[in-house]
Every structure is written in C-alpha cells, then in structure tokens.
C-alpha cells in the first residue's frame, strides 16, 4: 500500500482567471441543474417524506419485491432491500408527497394484510410517517435553520478576517459547497431528508475549516505566498481527504444496513467535501492571490 502524500501544485502555471473558471463553471452547472429541476418539478431537489409528507416503512417479509409493490394502494417511491450481515427479507419502502393523512395511516395496515410474515417477526418493523402539514412545518423550519446557519457563518468569517476579499472567498466557497451536493442529489435522485439537511449544515462547518486554514496561512503569516499555500494545502488536504474517506465508509455501510439517516449524511458529506477541495484550492486560492498581488488594500 502506498503512502498518502499531498502533491505540490504548481500554481504559477495558471492565471487567476483559469483557476477560478473551473469551480465557477461547475457552480453554474449546479445552479442550472437546481433551477431546471425547480422549473420541472416545483422543487430544486426531490423532497423526501420528512418535507413532503408520507411514510417510510421497514418491513420484514418473505414476499418478493414485486408483491411488496402491489401490496399498497399507491405505488411506493422506492423499495430497497437491506443487505446487512445476518439479515434477510428486510426492505425499506418509501412513500413521499401524500396529502391525505388517513391514506398514510392506512399503509402499515395494508402491509400487514397483504404481505407474508417471515416467521414470528412483525411485518412492519418500523414506520415513520409525517402528515403533509407537519412536513410543511418541518420544511419551513429547516429552511430557516440553513439560512441562519449560513448567515451566522458569513458574519463570523468577516469578523475573523476583517477584510473584504478573503471573507467573501470563504462565503462564496461555502455557498458552492452546499449547491454542488444539492445538484448531485437532484441528479442522483436522492431525496432531501432531515439527514441530508444535517449533512448540508455540517458542510458549512467543514468547508469553513479548510478556508480558514488557508486564509490564515496566507494572510497572517509572513513568508512567500506559494510557500504558505503549499503548507496550508498539506494540512488541509489531509484533513479533508481523511473526513471524506470516513464519510464514504460510513455512507456505504449505513446504506447497506438500511440506516437511512447515517447513509444520507455520509454520502452528502462525501460529495460536499470533494466540492470543497476544488473550491478551496482553486477558487479560494485564486481570489487570495489576486488580493495579495493586485488587490487594493485598505
């Protein structure tokens, strides 16, 4: 097994414009995807049952997936078999966007009536439901939470560095770090759930970590710009890649085990951290370099 080392990037070979172009282009594509999805479906990303109302059932049954699909009076959004060690015949069935609360309450009864029990185990192992109006409430609360978190982070960034360009760099890359995984969700068909919202908020924290590190090395230390950048990168990339790997492992394991909350947090953080690598070391670096060499300093 090879050792994990952080390579030295020759930033001098690229102009600021070239460096910034890639992350900005990707951000533009992400925004395009989100607005396209908004125009088509009315929401930038598919809303899960937490935000649209509906139900999620974990069932244990010897019936086949096709029989599970037919057991309910409305078609499930997804049926996923759980592949944990020592577990057979368990499935997660999701329904989102049901307005009628009685229809939601009837789902578990339908499962119990129409599916074959697996030995003595209860058919409905777990059920989570939210009525449409409860979900709407959750949606508003979550939006407020994200807005407050983002605003608080922006204010803190300005307080920490007290200069315009570096602070803006932090805010812009945090924004992009959230938009890119959102666009990924829209494309990959991952529903927005409480778990993914938690991941997005965590991303704000993680994203700012590496930005602060970079800004701190470049602005608050004496020494050559490229030298400082390289040092910040060595630490920063170690951090981010370590977290990415942990999240990937957690995401895949939790997905196989059917632990939805942990799975969505893991996958979204993995994608977001990858976006953060790009944003920090291309967008942020180019903004900082421009500020350091050409920017007007007050």
């Amino acid at each position: 097994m090879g050792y994990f080392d952080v390579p030295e990037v020759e930033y001098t070979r690229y102009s600021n414009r070239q460096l910034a172009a890639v992350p900005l282009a990707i951000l533009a594509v992400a925004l395009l995807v989100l607005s396209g999805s908004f125009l088509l479906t009315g929401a930038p990303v598919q809303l899960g049952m937490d935000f649209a109302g509906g139900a999620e059932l974990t069932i244990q049954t010897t019936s086949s997936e096709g029989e599970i699909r037919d057991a309910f009076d409305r078609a499930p959004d997804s049926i996923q078999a759980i592949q944990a060690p020592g577990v057979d015949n368990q499935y997660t069935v999701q329904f989102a966007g049901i307005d009628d609360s009685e229809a939601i309450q009837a789902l578990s009864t339908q499962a119990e009536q129409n599916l074959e029990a697996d030995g003595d185990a209860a058919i409905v192992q777990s059920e989570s439901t939210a009525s449409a109006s409860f979900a709407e409430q959750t949606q508003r609360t979550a939006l407020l939470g994200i807005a407050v978190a983002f605003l608080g982070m922006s204010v803190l960034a300005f307080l920490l560095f007290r200069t315009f360009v570096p602070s803006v760099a932090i805010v812009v890359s945090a924004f992009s770090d959230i938009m890119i995984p959102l666009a990924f969700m829209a494309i990959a068909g991952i529903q927005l759930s409480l778990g993914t919202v938690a991941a997005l908020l965590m991303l704000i924290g993680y994203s700012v970590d590496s930005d602060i590190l970079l800004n701190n090395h470049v602005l608050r230390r004496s020494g050559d710009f490229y030298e400082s950048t390289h040092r910040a990168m060595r630490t920063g990339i170690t951090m981010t890649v370590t977290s990415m790997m942990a999240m990937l492992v957690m995401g895949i394991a939790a997905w196989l085990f059917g632990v939805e909350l942990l799975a969505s947090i893991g996958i979204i953080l993995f994608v977001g951290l990858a976006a953060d690598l790009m944003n920090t070391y291309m967008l942020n670096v180019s903004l900082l370099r421009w500020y350091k060499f050409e920017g007007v300093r007050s």
Partner: protein
Amino acid sequence: MGPIAFAKEYWRILLLVTFLGVALVALFIPGGIVADDTLAAENESVDDNPTNIEYGLGLDGGTRVSAPPVGMTVDHLDIEHDEQQQVATALYTYDYENADLEVRDATVRFHENDNRFSAEIFSDEVTPAEFAAALESADVGLEVDEDDVEQGVTQQTRDEIIQTIELRINEAGLDGGSAYQEATLGGQYYIVTEVPGMSPEELRELLSDRGDVRIDAYHPDEDGEQTNETVLLGEEIADSGVASYDDERGQHYVPITVDNTEGEDGNSPASEYQGAMNDLGFTGEGQGRCHIQDREAGEFDFDPDDPQWCLLTIVDGEVIDAHSMGAGLAENMRTGTWENDPTFRMIVPTQQDAHHLAVNLQSGALTAPLDFDREQTFTLQPALADQFKLYSLLIGGLAVMTVCGMIFLRYRDPRVAAPMFLTAMAEVVILLGFAAAIRMPLDLSHVAGFIAVVGTGVDDLVIIADEVMDEGDVNSRRVFESRFRKAFWIIGAAAATTIIALSPLAVLSLGDLRGFAIITILGVLVGVLITRPAYGDILQRLLTDK
C-alpha cells in the same frame, strides 16, 4: 520535579485524564454519578445493559406520535370574575353553523399569575368569526373580532392534556412512556407522546379517545314518551377502580365512587344522583325494566314497545351500555342510605370496554382533542432497534478505523498518529459519559453526531500536528508553545463556525436533528477546551524528548 511543578507542566493532560475518569465512572458504575432517585429503574436496566447509557426510541424501539391540540384562543378578555361562567355558557350554547358544541368543548380560564382571562374553543368546525361572535353574544360588553382569535390552546390546556395522557399511559400498564410538548416556528405546539411497546394504531386510539364519560337516564316522561336526561358526569365521580369481572352474573364492570362532598347548595353529586334515581322511578316501577340492548349483536333499540328505565353509560357521546338498576342498589337508594357510601358498578359489555372505561375514568377527559390530520408518527420494533444498535457500533467502528488508517498513512510516525487516534477516542468516551450522566437518551442521530465529532476532532488534531512539526524539529518549549498557539487560533475559529452552523438545529424543533446538533456542538466544545490542548501537550512531550 515536585508535584506542583508537574501539575503546572501537564495540567492539560491531567484535565483530560480527570474528565476521562469521570466519564468512565458515569458510563460503567451502576448508579454512577446520577443521584439514586431512580434506583429501581436502574436495577432493571443493569441486567441487559452493561453501561449506564440510555437509549431513545430510535435505538430501543417504541412508538412516538406528535399531534397538535385542536382549538382556538382569545386572550386578555375584559371581563369580571362573576361573568366568567356566563361567557363560557354563551360559548357552548351559541348557534354555530357546522358545530354543535358541548360543555367540554369550550372553557374560560382565569390566569392568576398575570391576572387575565382567556377563552378557548376546542373544535375545528367553528370559524374564528363565529368564535368572536359567540363571545360578543355573552352580553357582558365584550368587543372581539376574528383577528383577536389565535389558533392553538393555552399553556394550561396543554399541561392538562399532557397530564391526562401520562395518566392514560400509566393506566394502560406501560412503563417508560412519556408525554411532552414541542414548540414549532409559528408558535404552534405539538403534543408528543412516546411509548415503548405499542403500535401507532393502539397509541392513536388511546390518544383519540376524548374520554368523556357520563350516565344518562333513559326513561318515560309524563306523556309516556321515552326521554334522555344526564344524571351523572365524569367529573362527579370521585374515585374509580380497575376493570373487573363478576363471575356470578357474568358482568364486566368498573367500580366507581360518586363524589359525596357537599356543594354550595348543600347537596352533593351523590345525593343529587340518588334523588334523581328515586324521582325518575328507577328505584321503583322501573326496576329491572331495561331491554333495549342486544348484547349479542351489540345493538340498541331506542324505539321500544313498552316503557323502559335504562341507565346509559356514554363515552364520548356514544352509548356503550344500557342496563336497569339492581335490586340491592335500588333498595339503598330508596331508603336514602346510598349517599353515605355512594358506590356502584358501571357495567359494560366486554372486557375491552371495561378496560377503556377504567382508563378514561382514571385519567379524566382530554381537555382538547388532538388533530391527527397534522400528526407525525415514528415506530420501531425492539428487534430492529437491536439491529440498529449493532449497526451503529459497526458503522462507527468502520468510520473510526478509516480515520485511523488515513492518519497512519499520512504521518508514518506512530508517535504522532497513535496519540491522535487515542485523543479522538477520548473525546467520544467523554461525550458518552456526559450523555450517561445527564441521562440523555441516545438515538441514531446522536450516533451521527459522534461520528461527526470524530471527524472534526481529527481535523483539528491534524492542524495541531502539522503546525507544531512545521519548519523542522521542535527543540525548545518556547518554539512549541508559540506554534501551538498559532494552531489554536485556527481550531478556535473553525470550532466557532461549526457551533454557529449547527446551533439553529439545536434549538429548532426538527425532531431527529436536534440530537445530532447537540452532540456535535458538545463534542466541539469538549474537543477545543479539553482534549485537543492535551494532545498538544502529549505531542510536545514526545517530540521535544525532554
């Protein structure tokens, strides 16, 4: 080196060790830090749970139903004490378009603390405008328009609901259930009920029973027409027993005691009931003359051919039983001695009815019904919960191993990587100990929080390690201290942003996410204040070869 100098030099490590020790005590010693007020519960759980950690619904199984109470409130009514009853009467007698309110559906409260009156209606079929009009119809000079009407009920009403629900859960014989309220953004409140070992349908049924019990006398009036008259209300019952069965007569019943304390008019509910029974003929000609109920079919015939004297047991407006008065009881009533020992049996058709009735009588009626159209439910079988416990351990373990592998690959120096790993683990142990000490029930979301803590923790340790080992060897304490301080600025700034980013989740009612946010914020605090400085000390000790 003297002990004081030693403590001065290594206070950060000592602090870490102290916290670890306390956390381990809280985690593993039964009773641990917690005062012994719940020793009984503690003993039960010791057998199957080697630690003091408490698990929440998501890791232990059970059912949770959240639903808001139905109702509207007008606050700060400008009325006097002697007008209170008048307003309440106006509210339930007003002629609403779609609703026919009963006494229990409206209430006027006086709030002693801030000396104000409020009026509430517990129905979703009344419009705010009608509510306002009904208040004005009380003829006490109130001026109310529909903008004064707020959705939702008062805190007192919610407290009563929660109390009633808790009584019902206990009556149903379920341990470990609880009810509490949760505020939402718009100032609305949800009543949340958590019960282990009940399905959502059962819990919903327990919660949707309004639980309003009364007895009506069904008897012929002067013209020989059958008529209904309420003779006993649920609140006039002083005490009730458990669901019982009489083998001899084959009856399911609940024994009750009617309140016999005298009211202002010198009459007690018991003596009034006795009087009504005698006046209406239940103790005389009507004895044994009730045949309107077909017990086999569970049906009632309210169009009988001959005069009937029936006592109707009515729960939430629905007749569940009709029977005549027994000879012994009638005798006591006739002679007027019954009111001295005012007990009788409320007879119902089935054991299940008896059980429901007992629960409803014990807990009293729900002040306001809950709106299940706006509910959220969660339920988990204990078997699956056990799986989740195992999975969380596995997933957490895998994530930690990955982190560990990455830092070994990166630093290739066990002197740097091993303490890094141990420090991150110490953080988790301290947090777990804290959770056990304050008896925070752990759920899946908390597990996610623990993993996030390891993630941010290792990030910060990497920053410390890189910063300290920057620019060649660390050969003096001064160099180390200055570099450590620089690293700490970054860590502090990063910690502050994480806390800010997650604090909305810790206060907003977003269900699962609150646990995640609380653990992550606590973890960041523990990390910045205790474990990460200690890691710096350890690293210094190892690198400066003192």
